């Protein structure tokens, strides 16, 4: 059976319909990526899956006893709250030192145990968040734009780490990303979301779908072209749209 089965999901926030009629299932071991423009309901969909948002109609069925690991988009820790990496990993359930070390090693954050969370770099911080999500031996790892604020080599390394983790733990991965080139290279299935699911399937299929091109521009072959194109660009970037504008 699927890890998560969503059918006929509608979500309203503050009177606006954010998601309508979403049907989706996630199988064990697959990497599923959600792409979509700003305000398309990507984060809302993830938050509905972890239980932070209530559906206004429709159902979200999780496999009974599903072990879930969640990496939020950005975690702000108030500077008044002292928090070592080791203590952070104990929230909400205390873990043994050996388990904590293993998770940090898996996430590529080995030597950070005693450090203050507030003193970490963006990349280190995201790796610690990943380590914490791995502690429960998740069957499903959920990541919400986990590489925001990382530079390009940093985010490429982070996605490589996630692929390693998937191979190592055999967990399914559901993530939201703006970085189309990485998405296209690393996903088993891509879901193009804009309030509803516009199209979904294997990366090549989605990249050539008219619905996808309508959202992300036609370019010369969509994101796969962007992927090749990006090697020549090392300057800071916000979204891939910028690159398209430059083309």
């Amino acid at each position, binding site marked *: 059976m699927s890890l998560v089965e969503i059918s006929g999901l509608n979500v309203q926030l*503050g009177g606006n319909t954010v998601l309508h009629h979403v049907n989706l299932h996630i199988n064990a071991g697959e990497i599923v990526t959600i792409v979509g423009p700003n305000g398309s309901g990507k984060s809302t969909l993830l*938050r509905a899956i*972890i*239980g*932070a948002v209530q559906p206004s109609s429709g159902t979200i069925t999780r496999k009974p006893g599903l072990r*879930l*690991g*969640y990496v*939020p988009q950005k*975690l*702000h*820790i*108030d*500077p*008044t*709250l*002292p*928090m*070592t990496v080791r*203590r*952070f990993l*104990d*929230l*909400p*359930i*205390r873990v043994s030192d050996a388990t904590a070390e293993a998770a940090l090693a898996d996430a590529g954050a080995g030597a950070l145990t005693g450090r*203050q969370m*507030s*003193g970490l770099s963006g990349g280190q911080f995201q790796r610690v968040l990943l380590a914490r999500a791995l502690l429960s031996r998740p069957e499903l790892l*959920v990541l919400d734009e986990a590489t925001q604020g990382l530079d390009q080599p940093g985010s490429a390394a982070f996605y490589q780490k996630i692929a390693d983790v998937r191979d190592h733990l055999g967990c399914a991965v559901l993530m939201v990303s703006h970085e189309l080139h990485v998405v296209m290279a690393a996903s088993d299935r891509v879901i193009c979301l804009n309030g509803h699911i516009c199209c979904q399937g294997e990366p090549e299929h989605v990249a050539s779908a008219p619905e996808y091109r309508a959202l992300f521009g036609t370019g010369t072959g969509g994101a796969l072209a962007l992927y090749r194109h990006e090697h020549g660009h090392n300057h800071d970037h916000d979204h891939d749209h910028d690159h398209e504008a430059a083309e």
Partner: protein
Amino acid sequence: MTLLDDFLVRATLAGLGLVMAAAPLGCFVVWRRMAYFGDATAHAAILGVALALAFDTSVFGGVLVVSLLMAFTVSTLSNRGYAMDTLLGVMAHSALAFGLVAVSFLQGVRVDLMAYLFGDILAVGIADLAVIWGGAALVIALLWWRWSALLTATLNPDLAYAAGIDPRREQLVLTLALALVVAVAIKVVGVLLIAAMLIVPAATARPFAGTPERMALAATIIGAVSVIGGLQASLVWDSPTGPSIVCVAAILFVLSSAVRGLLGNSRG
């Protein structure tokens, strides 16, 4: 019972009881930026005093009920996207104003308003001590029980949801604890200075703590030192006791900030 016959011993025990509950709770108030929230709850307490006197019930009960109502109202509104500082400014001070007016209508009851505004720790009796320590024990038990869930919800509500914790429930736990502390503290430092007992020790403890638990412990010790120091100071200089306690806490805060400056900002 000879020891408790000494008013100074009773006052010290009352202050320490308050600190045991207020210091760890105050850490959450600081971490969650709820300082004004604490103020609003505390200021509503004076209305509770007036109602309790009017209906001839216990002041502790009246304060607890009104503080709870205030805390729940603010908590509910805060989830609906109002501009919080404005809203709390309105509610905190109108609650105080209505309370003061209500007290003035009480006829035949001689109310020492100052005692409720600034506390009257030297007049604490054995029954008051029982109430203070009972309330404090309840708050400590609540925090102890929910500690991990509270911390997770404080860090990030979505992390809490993903771990099967409902952050709204944890918010209610804090709200309840806050109302209890206000009810306990009114006799010790009075409604105007309750927020100081929550925030100042926690803020003072911050530079010396690497984990949330150590910060809560350090805040408790700093609060205890403030109580004892403030009591002694008020004996020596015949100054009002509640404010003296807060003054000592404030001086410790300045010292701690200076030490932090000397250490550099290595702790962030």
